[in-house]
């Protein structure tokens, strides 16, 4: 079996699956159960200064798909609501009992050097493997000048990171908030401040739904609500993009990335790793299914690696980064065309109506003698947009086939149709 162990920013772990700082890592009881279940590491639920935060009742809401499948969860919880002393005591004990697992402590204290100077030695004394700076909590904490508010200002990110590097010997992972326009600015700031790694994403500002009878958004507290932080499967595409943006940014070359956001299967994890992540963190999937899912993720990842001859994670880490580029460098001459496997087609007509109404009228519908319809691609009209393949309910039924156009690679910067093309 493939070797899943990692060394991430100097922190060793038996596998890349870490639990993200959140309720699953709130206290020793959970963390011990997680380690028993096989998680490679945890980022302890964010600690702050005493007095501990106070949470409201009714805290989560969700965005559901068909059949109540949870697409994403929104939460309005704050950082730990337990005292610093209890948390530190539990962290010390757990690390002692589980020396082979990564134990990172997430921190959020006011943007004052004294505050950091106070808490960092206490954390270091627990024997923890590293710290993660929570600059990303999008609700509750920013109002107190912490979390996302800090994360949204690159100068603060850099400054706080530097304080941590100055007052603490442990590896510093800076957790980035996605509630910004260009994630690279935050990553660069962390890098300048001396961060050993970045982790991303934290949750995204959200309102999942509105109770139309009571005219109040979810989750409901009394007769009010507030925006929360969105996570889970739905945020994965956003997280993947942000990871890729940092991975291919020359300014942060080599900065370790811990991928977070919507990871629930081995495949999700493999994708984050392929885009450059050295470890991954999971929160929502564990909250929905329990810690046992790590077993399936480890098993699936190792088997896939075996099948592809990847002996360890480094063997395929970042392999997709080089294939991610700016739009302007894409090959304008590349052409793919939809192809329908008539044996697999069940005749639902979805591809036809999608293309007919909203794309390029490239799927013909032919009435058959029995009153049903047959669908076929008009290749000359197909622009290869993938819409039909996306809407087709039968996996593998529509195949996007690369065409041999006989034309060489040419990107937009070279295209004669581009009035701003680069000369040469």
């Amino acid at each position, binding site marked *: 079996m493939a070797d899943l162990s990692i060394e991430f920013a100097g922190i060793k772990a038996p596998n890349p699956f870490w639990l993200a700082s959140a309720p699953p890592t709130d206290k020793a009881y959970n963390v011990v159960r997680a380690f028993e279940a096989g998680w490679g590491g945890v980022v302890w639920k964010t600690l702050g200064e005493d007095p501990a935060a106070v949470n409201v009742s009714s805290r989560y809401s969700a965005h559901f798909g*068909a*059949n109540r499948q949870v697409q994403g969860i929104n939460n309005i919880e704050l950082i730990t609501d337990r005292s610093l002393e209890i948390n530190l005591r539990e962290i010390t004990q757990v690390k002692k009992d589980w020396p082979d697992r990564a134990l990172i402590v997430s921190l959020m204290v006011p943007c004052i050097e004294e505050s950091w100077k106070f808490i960092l030695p206490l954390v270091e004394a627990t024997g923890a493997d590293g710290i993660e700076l929570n600059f990303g909590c999008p609700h509750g904490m920013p109002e107190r000048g912490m979390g996302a508010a800090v994360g949204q200002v690159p100068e603060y990110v850099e400054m706080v990171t530097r304080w941590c590097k100055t007052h603490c010997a442990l590896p510093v992972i800076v957790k980035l908030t996605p509630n910004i326009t260009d994630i690279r600015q935050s990553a660069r700031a962390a890098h300048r401040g001396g961060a050993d790694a970045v982790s991303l994403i934290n949750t995204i500002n959200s309102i999942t739904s509105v109770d139309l009878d009571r005219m109040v958004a979810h989750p409901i507290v009394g007769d009010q609500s507030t925006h929360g932080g969105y996570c889970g499967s739905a945020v994965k595409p956003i997280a993947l993009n942000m990871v890729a943006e940092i991975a291919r940014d020359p300014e942060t070359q080599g900065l370790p990335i811990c991928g977070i956001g919507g990871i629930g299967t081995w495949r999700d994890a493999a994708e984050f790793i392929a885009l450059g992540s050295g470890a991954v963190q999971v929160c929502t999937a564990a909250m929905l299914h329990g810690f046992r899912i790590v077993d399936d993720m480890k098993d699936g990842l190792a088997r896939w690696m075996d099948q592809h001859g990847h002996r360890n994670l480094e063997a395929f880490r970042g392999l997709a980064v080089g294939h991610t580029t700016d739009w302007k460098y894409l090959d304008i001459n590349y052409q793919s065309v939809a192809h329908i496997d008539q044996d697999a087609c069940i*005749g*639902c007509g*979805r591809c*036809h109506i999608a293309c007919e109404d909203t794309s390029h009228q490239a799927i013909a*519908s032919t009435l058959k003698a029995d009153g049903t*319809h047959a669908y076929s691609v008009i290749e000359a009209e197909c622009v290869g947009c993938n819409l039909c393949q996306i809407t087709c*309910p039968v996996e593998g039924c529509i195949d996007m086939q690369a065409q041999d156009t006989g034309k060489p690679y040419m990107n937009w910067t070279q295209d004669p149709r581009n009035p701003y093309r680069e000369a040469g």
Partner: protein
Amino acid sequence: MIDALNHLPRPRAGADQLAEAFSDLAPPLTARQAAVESARCLYCYDAPCVNACPSEIDIPSFIHRISDENLQGAAERILSANILGGSCARVCPTEILCQQACVRNNAQECAPVLIGQLQRYALDHAGFTEHPFQRSPASGKRIAVVGAGPAGLSCAHRLAMHGHDVVIFEAREKAGGLNEYGIARYKLVDDYAQREVEFLLGIGGIEIRHGQRLGANLSLGELHAQYDAVFLGLGLAAVRQLGLADEDAPGLLAATEYIRELRQADDLTQLPLADRCLVLGAGNTAIDMAVQMSCLGAREVNLVYRRGVSDMGATDHEQEIAKHNQVRLHTWARPEAVLLDDTGRVRGMRFARTQLVDGRLGDTGETFELAADAIFKAIGQRFDDASLADPLAAQLARDGERIQVDAHMQTSVPGIYAGGDCTALGQDLTVQAVQHGKLAAEAIHAQLMLNVEAA
């Protein structure tokens, strides 16, 4: 009660047990089941299921609305195509209609979407506080509909919606046709047929006159003269005969006659029970009869058919129900003689074994006997010629014994339309009758409006 069977014993089971035996064959979906099932629908375009529904209900749309928690919208979608969508949801042989065509009935897809069940769910939970359709301004036209079965009712509703006034002439005491008097009791339970009629009449402008029988106290000539148009939804009121001696002996009768009693019975414990029951035929009526007798507690139910299993009219699903209810099937046997006891009552039947010789059914020469306390004929309904006795009615062109119509349900006599089982178009199914009635109403409406414009 049925005189021909009065000598038989009554069911052993108590009222509760019988009520249970005759409860919904397919129990209604729960909210959770409806949510799961509706989410399985792929919202097909030019959906094959719609093509397979004789009444052309926009199935993807109504299911999508169920999934969207818009049950009233779903119900209205159904009813706008099929005003008897509630009974159709319960009685349609979906296994040969919509669900047969569902793309999820594909080998790779596990199972079809339960369209009929979802249709029922939407209608059961629509919670209309008033009739969902409004009448157009009064047209001043009056139309006579003969027969208050699915065809007649559907026609009347659509006509009323277009602003016409309708009088339905119905021979029987209750409206509904075979929904009231013929469908297996466990398919259409309690007083659903009557409630549905009541709902349908909620649109207004429809009057039903009972005890009016065309060919007896009513003539087509008069109706044609007095009304702007006439629609005939007469169904098939006569029963095919075996052509054997002693066919009217006590103990032998038409399955439809018994089922009518069964459907009307308030007290199932008072029905005559044929402990050893013989049913002749292989269509859905035969199965309904056999299964219902089995539900009443018959110890031995035999179904005899003169041809083979593959020729049976009953769908696979119906045959499964029969098997499930311990009905024994005998194929390749033809009734040869009714056997009577000393008192002249049925005691059984002698059959001649049959076979196909050069594509033709013939006897093998072998015979056998089956004992029976009662024999039920379910070898088909016939059009009752007595309905078309007056001079104008006699002029109607026929298609076989049934009334000939074109694609607009118009008969050979202008202004007279027909639909449902009394015509040869399509299958003899409730949903088909509803569609015929609807099409006829549209054709009548178009014709009448054309005349108005021309005037």
